[in-house]
């Protein structure tokens, strides 16, 4: 493997515990065997990470920016809040509803009970940045919702980096919804306008029979940030996963979903709304494996692309030989603002079963001149009119969110 300055020697908590060391070592070996992705790697064809690999990002050693909201349930809060400050989980003392267990990753590693959920929802070999993440396995949350528990307060996980520059943050979360459980999780990423860092996050999510997870991801980060995320899922019988993602980009942003539909009537829906500005790259890559019969997936993304922006939308739907009567849809709609933007849209259908319903589509358009005329002829400034029209384009995604408080947060 080529050297990368992202790989550092650091002392990690519990490195002296063989079972923990073994996990990290497994990830490290995998990374050394398979290497970081290059453009030759089909899955990374359009997203060149070279500029990340040469950066000498420090491993963050627990510096808090001092601005944390340290309470996890403020009296008047709509959410149960957790905060990663510059990559470090800040509160460890949680007040939680009955049946909801939140364990900081170090404690989870120490106790070992839930370790079976680590590196289990995805294949390390196929996810080099998840290997990097695994090497540094230390920061993260493990969220377990017990059988039959319907959690009516959404969890809000904030990832903020408002002070630190030039660091890498590796965060690894595990979410398990036991049978018949329900949960909403909001992930909110934000930083200063111009700090540069790598945020490398892995979420391993297990949805047991008939459980439901609404996963909201809001990304409002620095134009110089690098954001690499993997959401890896195993979804079991009748369980439902819905992801709503909004982003106004980063220098390079990749939101990757690796979804395994493991039992009948499992469902995954991924809704994305994103804006990309000049010199930024936004990549949404989703790989849905319909491993058994009668499973469904839907991917719908809407993009607004400014001059000089690059967007990548890769959606792969794999339907195994026995996965008859499965449904897999994907659709991408882009709106170009004036100038040149690059859009690489790669739908992929790999179908080995008969009697399935699959579709994919892509459309791109420019701002409608008639609409723009109508708005400006009412005195509205051109830039405001453009914003109204682009917001309207993305609004179709926001409007799918039922929770008003969360929907408000999505507006970018």
């Amino acid at each position, binding site marked *: 493997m080529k050297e990368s300055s992202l790989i550092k020697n650091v002392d990690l908590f519990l490195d002296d515990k063989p079972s923990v060391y073994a996990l990290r070592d497994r990830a490290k070996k995998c990374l050394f065997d398979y290497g970081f992705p290059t453009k030759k790697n089909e899955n990374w064809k359009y997203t060149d990470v070279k500029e990340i690999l040469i950066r000498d990002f420090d491993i963050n050693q627990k510096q808090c920016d001092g601005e944390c909201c340290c309470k996890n349930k403020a009296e008047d809060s709509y959410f149960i809040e957790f905060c990663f400050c510059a990559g470090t989980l800040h509160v460890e003392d949680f007040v939680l509803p009955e049946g909801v267990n939140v364990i900081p990753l170090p404690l989870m590693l120490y106790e070992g009970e839930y370790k079976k959920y680590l590196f289990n929802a995805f294949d390390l070999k196929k996810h080099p940045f998840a290997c990097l993440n695994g090497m540094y396995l230390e920061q993260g949350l493990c969220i377990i919702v017990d059988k039959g528990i319907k959690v009516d307060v959404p969890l809000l996980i904030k990832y903020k980096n408002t002070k630190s520059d030039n660091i890498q943050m590796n965060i690894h979360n595990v979410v398990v919804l036991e049978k018949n459980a329900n949960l909403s999780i909001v992930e909110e990423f934000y930083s200063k306008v111009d700090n540069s860092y790598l945020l490398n996050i892995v979420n391993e999510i297990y949805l047991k029979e008939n459980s439901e997870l609404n996963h909201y991801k809001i990304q409002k980060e620095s134009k110089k940030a690098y954001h690499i995320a993997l959401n890896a899922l195993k979804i079991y019988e009748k369980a439902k996963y819905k992801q709503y993602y909004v982003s106004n980009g980063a220098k390079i942003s990749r939101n990757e979903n690796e979804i395994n539909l493991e039992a009948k009537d499992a469902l995954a829906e991924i809704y994305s709304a994103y804006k990309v500005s000049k010199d930024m790259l936004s990549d949404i890559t989703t790989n849905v494996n319909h491993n058994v019969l009668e499973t469904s997936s839907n991917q719908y993304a809407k993009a607004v692309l400014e001059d000089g922006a690059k967007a990548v939308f890769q959606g792969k739907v794999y339907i195994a030989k026995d996965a008859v009567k499965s449904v897999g849809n994907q659709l991408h709609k882009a709106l170009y603002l004036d100038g040149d933007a690059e859009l690489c849209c790669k739908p992929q259908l790999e179908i080995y079963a008969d009697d399935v319903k699959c579709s994919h589509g892509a459309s791109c358009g420019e701002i*409608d*001149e*008639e*609409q723009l*005329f*109508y*708005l*400006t*002829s*009412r*005195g*509205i*400034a*051109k830039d*405001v*009119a453009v914003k*109204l*029209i682009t*917001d*309207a*384009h993305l*609004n*179709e995604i926001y409007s799918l969110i039922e929770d008003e408080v969360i929907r408000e947060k999505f507006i970018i």
Partner: protein
Amino acid sequence: MTTPLLVIKDLHACVGDKEIIKGLSLTINKGEVHAMMGPNGAGKSSLSYVLSGKQGYEVTSGEIVFKGKNLLDMSVEERAREGVFLSLQYPVEIPGVGVSNFLKHSLNAVRKHNGEEELDTINFMKLLRSEANSLGINPEMLKRFVNVGFSGGEKKRFETLQMALLKPSFSILDEIDSGLDIDALKTVSEGVNNLRNEDNAFLLITHYQRLLSYIVPDVVHIFADGKIIKTGDKSLAIELEENGYASFLKED
């Protein structure tokens, strides 16, 4: 004499390579209502676009002076803020943009230009509801997206509502009567008549005398092949309705 509100002198305008306005002159004073009638394809809507500054309608010669200022130097939004309003023959649908959000942006842009305070949501909504009510507009319509799914008549009412809110000094109403049922025609006409005052003026583009019996014009123009070929008072519209365009076109 006071300066006219609008003076158009020997205006020529093209769309692409095609000349559509071919030497049009027109003066409109404050307090006046002008009607413009003319055959399909004569260039009436094009004239309205030229006046509001729409991209693609290019003035090749002539001048347009509005309130003593050169209108042709202004962008679409500047003209609107100065008081030019165009009620479109075919209002545009904008899915995803809510009616009240749109109107609030619009009204506040105009107010700001006039040095007035911008309205907050509460006061804006009060005003909007009361204006909508007097035009017989169902408040449910204010929750929808701009023109999306509006019937032909609803679209025209909505154009009138915008005019009532913005109180422009010069309104061009391009076939405001098309698609309106008899009751709606009355309501919309009343709306327009209520707005008439000594400081503003209207240009009504229409094919039918009926509208002019509700909104009585001071001047009537016959517009054909890119210019005004005859000007008269309201009796000209009646004559036109009886005889059609043939006799006027021959005279030319």
